[in-house]
């Protein structure tokens, strides 16, 4: 199998440079997000939102990142079915795991945020908002993906069938985008009757918001490449353990 896999060599110095850049970038973003001093960083206060508006820098980029991860995972599953390279399966699996992580983080940050703003005075933590439902279903799908993986023993068969399920689930998700908003009311900006994101967000917040998106995708890239490399090393170790016949 090893011969079929495209070269797994990593340009380590370049990798370290990008890693350093992501770490510095995210540090600046987090500092900016929590910074209270100075006029230009002091976010405008909106009734009820107040300082929770800073969650915009975390909650929303987590969603964007999760969407990006879902696309990455489905792409590698598709490529796996095309050429059967083991590395494609490793990548699809690593991305799916991170999609679960970012999905849960997004759900938690959103749920806490909504509890203290939209649903203030009530005892609601979870209300079926279309975007929330969709994220929950995405997490369920990736959960099912891992259950399916654990039910298959043969590595080659596992990779192939998991890729089929991943792609099959991926094509049904857009229907949620169509069906859900027509049946459930949304409080999110941009939903029917609500002002769009650009109308209610002060321009100053975008100086942190857009870099935060890039930063979170960078964090994903770091975790993702690390998981992929770890999986490759694990595979090589497993291959060493196998007795040569």
């Amino acid at each position, binding site marked *: 199998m090893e011969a079929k896999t495209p070269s797994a060599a990593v340009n380590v110095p370049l990798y370290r440079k990008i890693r350093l850049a992501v770490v510095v970038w995210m540090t600046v973003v987090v500092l900016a997000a929590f910074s209270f001093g100075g006029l230009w960083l002091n976010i405008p206060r909106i009734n009820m939102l107040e300082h929770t508006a800073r969650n915009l820098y975390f909650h929303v980029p987590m969603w964007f990142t999760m969407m990006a991860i879902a696309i990455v995972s489905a792409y590698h599953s598709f490529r796996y*079915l095309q050429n059967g390279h083991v590395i494609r399966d490793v990548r699809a699996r690593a991305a799916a795991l991170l999609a679960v992580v970012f999905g849960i983080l997004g759900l938690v940050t959103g749920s806490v945020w909504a509890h203290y703003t939209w649903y203030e005075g009530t005892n609601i933590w979870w209300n079926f908002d279309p975007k929330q*439902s969709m994220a929950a*279903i995405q997490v*369920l*799908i990736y*959960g*099912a993906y891992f*259950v*399916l993986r654990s*039910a*298959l*023993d043969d590595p080659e*068969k596992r990779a*192939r*069938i998991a*890729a*089929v*399920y991943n*792609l*099959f*689930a991926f*094509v*049904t998700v857009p*229907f*949620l985008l*169509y*069906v*859900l908003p*027509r*049946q459930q009311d949304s409080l999110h900006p941009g939903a029917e009757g609500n002002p769009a994101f650009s109308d209610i967000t002060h321009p100053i917040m975008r100086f942190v918001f857009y870099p935060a998106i890039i930063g979170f995708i960078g964090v994903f890239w770091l975790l993702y490449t690390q998981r992929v490399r770890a999986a490759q090393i694990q595979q090589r170790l497993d291959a060493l353990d196998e007795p040569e016949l």
Partner: protein
Amino acid sequence: MTNWLHGAWAVFSKDLRLELRSRYAINMLLMFVLASILLVLFAVGSEDISPQAEAGLLWIVILFSAAVGLGRAFIAEEERGTVLLLQLNTRGSMVYAGKLLFNFLLVLGVNLVSLGVFLVLLSVEVALPGLLLLTLLLGALGLSGATTLLAAIIARAAGRGPLLPVLLFPLLVPLLLSVVHATQNSFAGAVPGSDGWTASLNDLLALTGFAGVVITASVLLFDYVWND
């Protein structure tokens, strides 16, 4: 093309003949539907429930019966050891088409039976029977389309039986939302502002699209599951 149709039909008629011989799936599904509707009845009691709750309960029964019954399609082939024979004699798409047709008819039958029992036992009044039948038909198509590929997937896995609902239910959420909404409209008739058909148009479109997409994707993906 005629060759292909012939092959798909042969797979279908083989399944049908085996089923009529043992009647395992049909009997099991009937009993499952009856038992679960009776459970619903006992749980609800003589309570007067809203059309939304009625439509939701009906479709939950249908989805669970599909998840229990349709997994058989490919597991039976593995158990009888006839997979290799089918792989050698037919192309994957023929097998898929034959199994899809069989599953579709099975789900449609289950839908009609559970609907009949449900309507009589819970004394539900249907304002728009045409809408209800169309919803059942499109729902059965989408449901069997999604389940047939997943049944082929779980036949390859070790745990098998209980795996199907885990894989199936997250994918069926768009279907469930649409069918429940359309069924609810067909029970209630008019909704404020428009009549039942206009209010259900979006759901019917979504159901048609869902069935089309899952069947297309299944045809494209089936060979990867079926061939070793």
